[in-house]
C-alpha cells in the first residue's frame, strides 16, 4: 500500500513534466546526490524523459539507476561518480578517470522501488538481450500504471521478439488505463476487456477507486461495462474449464467402465479387479517408457503412442488368463465371482507392491501433451487432458466398430441376448466370453495409459476409479455402448461440477444418491434391454 502514495506522486510529476524535456544527465546525477527528496526528483525526471529519450540516454538511465541501487554511485565534493573495479567513471558522462571519492547515497525504502522501476523501464527500452528485456517487463508489470503509456508504445515498436512484443503491448494497455488522456483511458479499458481474464478484471475493477469513477459518468459507464463483460466471460470460461475437466474424467471413466459393462452384459459378472487392470495398464506404459529410454532415447517422447498396443495386449492377456482360470468356472455364480475377482485384485495390488514398491511412478511428459492453449478467459485446453479425451473418443469408435462390425462383436451381442440360443446355433460361447473378457480388460488397460499423464500412478490407484466405474455401469445399464457413454459423461460431469462447490466427498455422496434415486425410476439403468422372463 506504501506504493500508492509514491505512485500517485510519480504520476503527478510525470503529468507535470510531459512532454518530457531532453535529459540533462548532470542535473539528474547532481539531484540524486541531494538527499531523499532529490533522489525522488531524479527518478521522476528519468522516467519522464524515457519515452522520448535516445537509446544512448536510455542506456545511461539504466546504468545510472543500477549504480544507485547497487550502491556503486559515489556522492562527494566533486561531480558524482560511479565506482567500478577498473576505476571510477564520471556519473554523467560515464568517462573513466574521475576521482573516486565520497560515499554511496542512501536509497530510502520509498525511493528504492522508484529506482527499480526506472532501471526496469530503461532496460526494457535499451536492454541488449530479449531475456533482459523480458525480465524488465516482468518487473514492470505490476507497476505499469505508474509509467507513461508512451514508454510501452515505444518499447513495443522497438521490440524484435514477437512474443515479447505482444506482452509489452498488453502491459502498455494497463499503463494506458492511467493515462491523463481520457480518450486513451477509455480505449484501453475496451482493449483490456477484449482479453477477459482474472488479471484484466483486477486491473479494471481497481479503477472503481479512481477519482474519475465518481466524477466522469462516461468513465464510470465504461468501467462498469468492462467489468460486467469480463465477469461474464470469466463465468463462461469457468464453466468451460469445469466441462473440460469433467470431460477428461468422463473419458477415463468411460474406458474403465466400457469393459465392465460389456462383460457384465455378457456374463452377468462384475469384475472387481477392473481397477487393477487400469493400474496394470499404467505400469505397462511405464515399462515401455523405461525400455525406450534405454533402447531409443531419441524416441522417448513417443513412448505413450508406442505403449498403446503393448498395454492393450498385456492387459487383455491378463484378463484372458483370469477368465480362463477363475471366472469361467464360476459362471453360474456371479456373486462368488465378485469375491474371486476381488481376490485377484488383492493379489495384483500386493504383487506390484512387493515387486515394484508403493511410490508414485515418474512419467516423462511428452512434448506433444505438455502445456496447452489459452482459448478464452481462464480457459486453457491442456494437451494432456485433450489426449485423454481424444484417446477415449478413438477407443469409443473402435469399440463400436468391434461390437457392430466384426464377427466377435456379433457373437458378443448374440450371447448377451440369449446365451442358450447362441450356443445352439454354433457360437462357441465360452470362447466369446474369453475374448470379450480380454477385450474389456484391454480397454481398462488403455484407461490406465490415458490417465498416466494426468493422475498419479501407484499400486492403489485402481480403487480411485473402480467405485465410479461401478456407478457408471449401474447407471448406464448393460448391453449398449450408448448407455455407458452417457452414464460416464453424467457421472464425470456431476463429480467435477459439484467438487468445487461442496468438495470431492460431497460430489461422491451426491452422485450415489442420484443413482439410487434414478434406479427408483429405471431399475435396469438407462438403456436396459427389456424382455419377458426367460
Amino acid at each position, binding site marked *: 500500500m506504501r506504493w500508492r502514495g509514491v505512485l500517485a506522486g510519480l504520476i503527478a510529476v510525470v503529468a507535470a513534466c510531459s512532454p518530457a524535456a531532453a535529459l540533462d544527465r548532470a542535473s539528474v546525477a547532481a539531484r540524486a546526490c541531494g538527499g531523499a527528496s532529490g533522489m525522488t526528483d531524479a527518478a521522476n525526471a528519468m522516467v519522464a524523459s524515457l519515452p522520448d529519450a535516445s537509446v544512448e540516454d536510455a542506456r545511461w538511465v539504466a546504468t545510472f539507476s543500477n549504480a544507485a541501487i547497487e550502491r556503486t554511485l559515489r556522492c562527494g565534493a566533486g561531480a558524482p561518480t560511479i565506482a567500478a573495479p577498473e576505476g571510477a567513471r564520471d556519473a554523467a558522462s560515464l568517462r573513466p578517470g574521475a576521482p573516486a571519492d565520497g560515499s554511496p547515497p542512501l536509497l530510502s525504502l520509498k525511493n528504492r522501488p522508484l529506482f527499480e522501476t526506472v532501471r526496469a523501464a530503461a532496460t526494457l527500452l535499451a536492454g541488449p538481450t530479449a531475456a533482459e528485456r523480458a525480465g524488465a517487463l516482468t518487473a514492470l508489470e505490476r507497476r505499469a500504471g505508474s509509467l507513461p503509456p508512451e514508454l510501452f508504445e515505444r518499447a513495443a515498436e522497438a521490440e524484435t521478439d514477437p512474443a515479447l512484443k505482444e506482452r509489452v503491448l498488453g502491459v502498455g494497455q494497463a499503463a494506458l488505463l492511467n493515462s491523463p488522456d481520457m480518450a486513451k483511458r477509455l480505449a484501453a479499458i475496451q482493449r483490456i476487456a477484449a482479453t477477459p481474464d482474472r488479471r484484466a478484471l483486477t486491473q479494471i475493477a481497481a479503477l472503481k477507486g479512481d477519482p474519475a469513477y465518481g466524477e466522469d459518468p462516461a468513465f464510470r459507464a465504461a468501467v462498469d461495462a468492462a467489468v460486467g463483460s469480463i465477469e461474464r466471460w470469466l463465468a463462461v470460461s469457468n464453466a468451460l474449464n469445469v466441462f473440460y475437466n469433467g470431460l477428461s474424467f468422463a473419458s477415463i471413466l468411460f474406458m474403465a467402465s466400457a469393459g465392465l459393462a460389456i462383460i457384465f452384459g455378457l456374463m452377468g459378472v462384475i469384475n472387481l479387479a477392473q481397477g487393477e487392470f487400469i493400474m496394470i495398464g499404467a505400469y505397462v506404459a511405464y515399462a515401455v517408457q523405461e525400455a525406450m529410454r534405454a533402447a531409443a532415447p531419441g524416441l522417448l517422447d513417443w513412448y505413450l503412442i508406442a505403449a498403446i498396443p503393448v498395454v492393450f495386449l498385456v492387459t487383455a492377456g491378463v484378463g484372458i488368463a483370469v477368465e480362463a482360470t477363475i471366472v469361467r468356472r464360476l459362471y453360474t455364480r456371479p456373486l462368488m465371482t465378485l469375491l474371486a475377482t476381488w481376490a485377484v485384485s488383492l493379489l495384483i495390488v500386493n504383487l506390484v507392491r512387493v515387486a515394484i514398491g508403493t511410490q508414485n511412478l515418474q512419467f516423462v511428459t511428452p512434448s506433444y501433451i505438455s502445456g496447452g492453449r489459452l482459448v478464452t478467459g481462464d480457459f486453457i485446453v491442456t494437451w494432456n487432458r485433450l489426449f485423454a479425451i481424444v484417446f477415449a473418443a478413438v477407443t469409443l469408435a473402435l469399440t463400436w466398430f468391434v461390437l457392430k462390425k466384426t464377427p466377435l462383436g456379433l457373437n458378443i451381442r448374440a450371447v448377451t441376448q440369449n446365451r442358450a440360443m447362441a450356443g445352439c446355433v454354433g457360437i462357441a460361447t465360452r470362447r466369446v466370453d474369453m475374448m470379450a473378457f480380454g477385450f474389456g480388460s484391454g480397454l481398462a488397460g488403455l484407461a490406465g495409459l490415458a490417465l498416466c499423464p494426468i493422475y498419479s500412478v501407484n499400486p492403489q490407484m485402481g480403487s480411485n476409479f473402480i467405485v465410479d466405474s461401478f456407478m457408471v455401469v449401474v447407471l448406464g445399464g448393460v448391453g449398449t455402448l450408448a448407455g455407458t457413454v452417457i452414464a460416464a459423461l453424467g457421472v464425470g460431469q456431476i463429480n467435477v461440477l459439484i467438487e468445487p462447490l461442496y468438495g470431492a466427498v460431497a460430489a461422491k455422496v451426491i452422485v450415489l444418491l442420484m443413482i439410487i434415486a434414478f434406479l427408483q425410476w429405471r431399475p435396469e439403468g438407462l438403456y436396459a*434391454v427389456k424382455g*419377458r*422372463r426367460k
Partner: protein
Amino acid sequence: MTVAVLVEGLTVEFGRFRAIDDLSLAIDYGEVRAVIGPNGAGKTTLLDVISGVSRARTGRVLFDERLELTRTSEAAIARAGVRRKFQKPSVFEALTVRDNVEIGAGGARDAAARDRIAATLETVGLAAEADRLAGELAHGQKQWLEIAMVVVSEPKVLMLDEPVAGLTDEETERTAALVRRLRTPGRAIVVVEHDMDFVETIADRVTVLHEGRTLFEGSMARARADARVVDVYLGR
C-alpha cells in the same frame, strides 16, 4: 355370468418391439382356454401381463370384472386368486416338496389347510415324494409340483404356461387328466401350449395369437380348418 379375465386394447412393448398389439380377449369362468400361436406371438407375454410380471403400455386387464390387473402388484394379483405356472418349471429347489406346496397354500397351518395340501399332493401324484427336496425331482415331477403349488390355493383363474413341454406321452396324458379334473364352474383355466393333441384334449376354446394380435378364436376343430391358422402356425 361375469367374465373371469377381460383384456381390452392391450399393448405391450419391449423397447421398439411390440410384443402385444391392441389385443382384446374375454375368458369365462368354467372354460379351459388354450392360447396357441407361433413363437413370438405374445402368448407368454399375455400371461406375464395378467400375472403382473410385465407392465402394459396401454389397455386394461380386468379380473372378475372388478380388479384392474395392470395396476396391481404381482402378490396382490395372486392373493386375489389369479395364479400361474411358469414356462420354465419354477419350484423352490432348496425346500421340500411339502414346503413348496405349503408356501403355495399361503402358509395356513390349520387342519383344513393340511388336508388340502395332502389332497393336492395326492392329486398330482407326489404324496410319496413329500419330504424330498424339490431340486431332486425329475423334470415332469417338477412340472406337477409347480401345478400343485398354484392349485392348492384354489385359484379362480389358473394359468398354465407349457405344462407338458418336455414330458413323455404318458406324463402328458396324466397332465391332461389333471387339467380336466381342475376344471370347475367357478374357475377359468388358461393354457399356453404347443402340443396340439394335448390342446385338443383339454381346451373348450382356443385363441390363436399371431404377432401380438388375435388371429382366430373358436373351437380347436374349427381352428384346424381355418386357412390363416394353418398358414401361420399349424402348417399343412
